[in-house]
């Protein structure tokens, strides 16, 4: 590779860094002030792209018109952001942090379908800006002049933001709220206005990023997920709430990606390393390293404490008579399901999927609820269990039963390694590190064609003859699922479950009575990994084939949605949540083409009506009903 090619790639990286910075800066601002992890930020970016496309194709013929269209697109997205804040988020600031995440996730589903409806599923290639259509030649290689413009825009926006934050009263308020928003409120600042305006600014920046990105990448429906993934990484690497940190991190990540592409295929000590493939995982590796070395990100500071910690959990109690009876009735109904609905019926197949989902959600709840560790990458252990079982079955020739037993061990081993790093962090940073590990597992599986079959996955993963009928497999799944739930319940009521909650309630106090947070959380992490591995193994043999989709971000997010939907305070929560979610997904998906939007609306509705999750809300209702004041 020539030095010239490297140089051009690095310039290209700088251009990429600018858009990356714009999205990340908005996300960082919003998080800093409102403490909302805005999952819909990628969707705002995508909206920016599409709106810019429409505007530019109408008024973008001249230079003036073009840039006016770009700015107008940003303003449109800022307005949409303000509306989202006023209509939705404002109602749930008091809800637990993760509930807000759930609501913003629902927004991504809605935006997806709105965009699909308005602009269609085709990729839309935007025209280049008038006057910047040509390319200049650097060492004999073409570099679009538009990229040069982008390279300048990034620092320009950084400068403007810096002026805004340091030179205006509004900026002072934003910085103050980032440090201690309760104090800002106590000093008589109108929080509603501050939050709305910050959300609008953040959304506008994302929209601007989307609009500016249009000539480099066509507007497409997959942009939102890629953008949010990238933005999260940049914000976390730079340090939550730090704008210069976001800029630095954007530069770092964009340049490392560019470098990977420039390096190409390199052979090293006899191994051929394909660096371009590494781009898929590079940012997550960078994030993992940064989080391990500097837990608050490059320029971040430890998060200020948030005083309103939301709901205080009630002590756990064994299920009452009512709940026991409902549980027994459900179990009885499940036992006769294959007989009533038919062994090979759709209901039986759906029931297997739901049971697997329940086990997945229960294992996630184990570390999220009692453990207090919010995992955004739980699919990793699901995928490890699934791929572990499938590979041991196909490649190592293990009998199916043994491979299924190995699934939790593989999940457990993964959790042992990843958990060691994760439990040293907390809050959003821990969540992001779990996400990073999941992405690393995903990209290894995706790219290791020889072993995992790459994007095609592994086929022919069928259960032994005695389990070949759907009915038999259903009973196996039911048995393992119920056993898993009972095991988790047992652990939660045992000293170890109490120790996990002690550490979550107050690590300092737990330490003062001899309970070390790291060991307890690590152990919890490993248990969750093992149980999730069982779910993964069951999943692989129920489908007969698996693909990298098993480990995707969307599966991790599904898990989060299930747990939060049900409510985090009780063990019944994840069960109710996963069943609700999966049945909704199934029935809604069959009803309409726009099932995502509908699902999103349903989730928002549930969030607004059941602010403690379905099971949690019913629990407090029944308490109110039974106990006279």
């Amino acid at each position, binding site marked *: 590779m020539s030095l010239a090619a490297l140089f051009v790639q690095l310039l290209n990286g700088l251009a990429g860094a600018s858009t990356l910075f714009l999205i990340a800066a908005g996300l960082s601002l919003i998080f800093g002030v409102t403490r909302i992890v805005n999952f819909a930020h990628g969707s705002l970016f995508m909206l920016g792209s599409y709106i810019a496309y429409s505007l530019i194709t109408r008024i973008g013929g001249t230079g003036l018109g073009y840039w006016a269209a770009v700015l107008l697109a940003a303003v449109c997205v800022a307005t949409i952001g303000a509306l989202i804040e006023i209509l939705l988020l404002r109602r749930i600031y008091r809800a637990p942090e993760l509930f807000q995440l759930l609501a913003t996730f629902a927004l991504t589903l809605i935006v997806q379908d709105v965009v699909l409806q308005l602009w269609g599923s085709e990729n839309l290639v935007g025209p280049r800006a008038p006057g910047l259509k040509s390319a200049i030649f650097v060492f004999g290689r073409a570099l679009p002049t538009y990229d040069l413009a982008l390279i300048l825009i990034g620092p320009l926006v950084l400068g403007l933001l810096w002026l805004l934050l340091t030179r205006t009263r509004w900026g002072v308020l934003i910085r103050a709220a980032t440090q201690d928003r309760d104090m800002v409120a106590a000093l008589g600042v109108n929080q509603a206005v501050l939050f709305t305006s910050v959300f609008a600014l953040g959304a506008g920046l994302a929209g601007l990023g989307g609009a500016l990105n249009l000539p480099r990448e066509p507007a497409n429906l997959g942009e939102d997920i890629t953008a949010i993934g990238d933005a999260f990484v940049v914000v976390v690497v730079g340090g939550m709430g730090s704008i210069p940190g976001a800029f630095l991190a954007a530069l770092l990540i964009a340049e490392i990606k560019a470098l990977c592409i420039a390096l190409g295929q390199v052979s090293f000590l006899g191994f051929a390393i394909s660096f371009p493939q590494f781009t898929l995982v590079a940012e997550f590796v960078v994030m993992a390293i940064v989080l391990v070395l500097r837990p608050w990100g490059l320029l971040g500071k430890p998060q200020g404490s948030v005083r309103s910690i939301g709901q205080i959990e009630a002590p756990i109690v064994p299920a009452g008579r009512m709940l026991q009876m409902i549980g027994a009735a459900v179990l009885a109904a499940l036992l006769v399901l294959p007989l009533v609905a038919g062994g090979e019926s759709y209901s039986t197949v759906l029931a297997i999927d739901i049971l697997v989902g329940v086990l997945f959600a229960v294992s996630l709840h184990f570390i999220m609820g009692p453990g207090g560790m919010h995992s955004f990458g739980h699919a990793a252990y699901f995928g490890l269990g699934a791929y572990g079982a499938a590979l041991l079955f196909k490649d190592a020739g293990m009998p199916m039963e043994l491979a299924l037993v190995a699934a939790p061990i593989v999940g457990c081993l993964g959790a042992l390694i990843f958990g060691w790093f994760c439990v040293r962090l907390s809050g959003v940073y821990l969540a992001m590190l779990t996400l990073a590990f999941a992405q690393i597992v995903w990209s290894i599986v995706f790219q290791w064609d020889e072993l995992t079959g790459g994007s095609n996955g592994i086929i022919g993963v069928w259960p032994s003859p005695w389990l070949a009928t759907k009915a038999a497999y259903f009973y196996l799944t039911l048995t393992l699922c119920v056993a898993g739930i009972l095991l988790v319940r047992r652990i939660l009521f045992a*000293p*170890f479950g109490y*120790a996990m909650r002690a550490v979550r309630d107050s690590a300092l106090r737990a330490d*003062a009575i001899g309970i070390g947070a790291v060991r307890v959380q690590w152990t919890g992490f490993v248990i969750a990994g093992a149980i999730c591995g069982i779910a993964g193994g069951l999943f692989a043999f129920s489908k007969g084939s698996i693909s990298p989709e098993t480990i995707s971000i969307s599966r991790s997010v599904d898990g989060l949605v299930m747990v939060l939907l049900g409510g985090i305070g009780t063990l019944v929560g994840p069960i109710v949540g996963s069943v609700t979610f999966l049945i909704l997904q199934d029935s809604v998906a069959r009803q309409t083409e726009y099932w995502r939007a509908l699902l999103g609306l349903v989730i928002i509705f549930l969030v607004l009506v059941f602010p403690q999750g379905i099971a949690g809300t019913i629990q407090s209702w029944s308490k109110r009903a039974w106990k006279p004041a």
Partner: protein
Amino acid sequence: MTPLLQVRDLTRSFGGVRAVDNVSFELARGELLALIGPNGAGKSTCFNMINGQLRPDSGEVRLDGENIVGRKPRDVWRLGVGRTFQIAATFHSMTVIENVQMALISHAKRTFHAWTAAAAHFRDEARDLLAQVGMDAHADRPSSILAYGDVKRVELAVALANKPKLLLMDEPTAGMAPRERNDLMALTKRLVTINDIGVLFTEHSMDVVFAFADRMIVLARGKLIAQGSGEAVRDDPKVREVYFGSGRTVARRVSA
């Protein structure tokens, strides 16, 4: 006989500030020793070093003759050092008795037991401890709804769970009404006498200190400036100076 706690030449700086500067003192079993001094004197720093939360730059902390500097707080706890916090709190997702049971479970090294229900572990012992602090009637209430004074009592029961030799209490009566203060300290005094525990406590309320401390040590700007009985400390000119000012500064300001 070696004293229960020996602190020798304990020093710790933050940046250029010597928060604790060559502090030495001793504490015997059954003794209530008050650590007093104005804000910023280094009381909390001193405390956190004894309990293992902070590592001193130099100096020794000996418990029954054994140097415990460099050990983690939970290992110090295992050696028999209990502590209560300035801002009292409990594990808020547990009932009162579960809080105490948690400490007993940890003391018996059963934290990682994952089979039998926690409720079955040490319930009687926990009830005994709650009875000692007068909280047995509240055993099954959620600890998150207790009144602040009651939280302090529960914290005391938790701190007593591992049968400590030494109890560190960081402002045990902060935030309490005068009546409650006296009750809590009288209770503490009774319990340490019965169990022969040494207590080191920091305190801002001089009423509490003079009523209950057997002895006191006074810190100012990181240095130990006086120690001894209530009367000796009260009459010490240095102590008067840090608490009331010397009078000179006032005079100078007036004349200027």
